[in-house]
């Protein structure tokens, strides 16, 4: 009993939980900035720069504006952080995961919205009109990527389940071990591409950072945040990078299990780095920010088409 609790605590606090997620998330954010700089022929910040940013923000004052609702303003970033960590506990690291037996695609889909909602509620609670515009854009972004995301999830579920309902993430990973990784099945390649395009919008990196466009609406929902809550939000963005890429790995590259947890974790981290560079850094380096209506159009036409193609192909059983 005691050992079980200790093990669970270890899961929650250290390995797939808080510490691991935070460390890898910050690492990914650092790599993203470094590689982005190199793509622009710059030297770029040190890889630990997000850690510096985080600690710096912790040391700053937190000013709560007059118009803000204090409770919601301070609670929002913490709720976002906690739900991201909990979400990571549900995502399998190949065959291993603390609570992956209880992970379910729909649950993951909905847990993924909580950080976004936290950002929106926090921004809204700050009372700034810029934040008002920011949350509107954040919400439209959310609506934009949710459609392709659910199509991707459904095609993966159909592929793994056949004629039975299969929403369990660990079942999907197990199916991939038995067969091949999802990405190796040609029908799912459009879905994988769609998912890769969904990741940057979910994380909110350029060109899909319309919600936090610092040059036009002064960081949108984050406008009135300073100090520790802002640090939490910046951390959340870093965590989202890791969680989304890890979800991609679980959904599409789940079939390469080595049997050793530490090695699996290492492979996961490496894959996450590759994915981050591929779908966030590279797109960031070569594009400029979209307008919100173009972003919506992009997701509901191009990305949705990709995902639908996959769903239809899988459905036809090709």
């Amino acid at each position: 009993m005691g050992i079980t609790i200790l093990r669970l605590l270890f899961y929650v606090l250290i390995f797939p939980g808080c510490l691991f997620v935070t460390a890898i998330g910050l690492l990914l954010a650092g790599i993203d900035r470094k590689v982005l700089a190199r793509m622009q022929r710059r030297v770029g910040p040190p890889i630990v720069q997000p850690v510096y940013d985080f600690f710096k923000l912790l040391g700053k004052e937190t000013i709560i504006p007059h118009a803000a609702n204090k409770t919601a303003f301070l609670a929002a970033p913490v709720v976002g952080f906690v739900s991201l960590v909990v979400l990571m506990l549900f995502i399998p690291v190949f065959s291993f995961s603390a609570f992956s037996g209880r992970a379910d695609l729909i649950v993951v889909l909905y847990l993924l919205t909580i950080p976004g909602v936290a950002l929106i509620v926090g921004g809204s609670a700050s009372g700034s009109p810029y934040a008002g515009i920011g949350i509107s854009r954040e919400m439209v972004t959310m609506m934009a990527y949710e459609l392709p995301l659910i199509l991707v999830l459904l095609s993966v579920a159909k592929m793994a389940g056949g004629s039975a309902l299969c929403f369990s993430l660990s079942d999907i990973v197990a199916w991939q071990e038995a067969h091949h990784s999802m990405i190796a099945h040609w029908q799912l390649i459009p879905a994988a591409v769609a998912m890769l395009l969904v990741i940057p919008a979910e994380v909110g990196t350029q060109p899909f950072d319309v919600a936090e466009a610092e040059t036009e609406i002064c960081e949108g929902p984050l406008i009135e945040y300073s100090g520790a809550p802002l640090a939490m939000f910046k951390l959340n963005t870093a965590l989202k990078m890791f969680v989304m890429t890890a979800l991609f790995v679980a959904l599409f590259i789940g079939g390469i299990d080595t049997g050793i947890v530490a090695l699996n974790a290492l492979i996961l981290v490496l894959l996450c780095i590759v994915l981050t560079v591929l779908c966030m850094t590279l797109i960031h380096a070569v594009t400029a920010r979209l307008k919100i209506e173009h972003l919506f159009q992009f997701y509901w036409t191009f990305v949705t088409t990709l995902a639908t193609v996959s769903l239809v192909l899988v459905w036809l059983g090709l």
Partner: protein
Amino acid sequence: MFKKMIAKSTAKSPWIYHINTGSCNGCDIELVAVLTPRYDAERFGFKLAGTPRHADIVVVSGPITSQSKERLLRTLEQVPEPKCVVTIGSCPQSGNVFKGSYSVEAPLEQYVHVDVAIAGCTPKPEAVIEGLYKAAEILGKKREAMNQ
């Protein structure tokens, strides 16, 4: 527990908020040039912030016109501590060629404490980097002083 880490990080991750108070745009361009690949101030963690609430260093350019003075001071007030004020170019320090004009209320020093002055009209990007770097060091010291 994190005191040292925070003080060190404060010096290593200064975010800049730039206010133009009627500048001719020369200094503004040079400030942006600092972030280009050639000079790349991001090496030291510099980043342009979109709002004063995120800023550590406020860079002021321009001769503080009467219209902008009130807005400048209001914005400066909204920056959380520890913060540094850096003037870039001659204008905010003295008014430069505009001094004595009915609409210029130049020396910034009479309203707030200026931590670093970067002279030049306009300063070379290298000078701007130097000035910002110095401001970042001051920032770290200010944070350490807050610990005591």
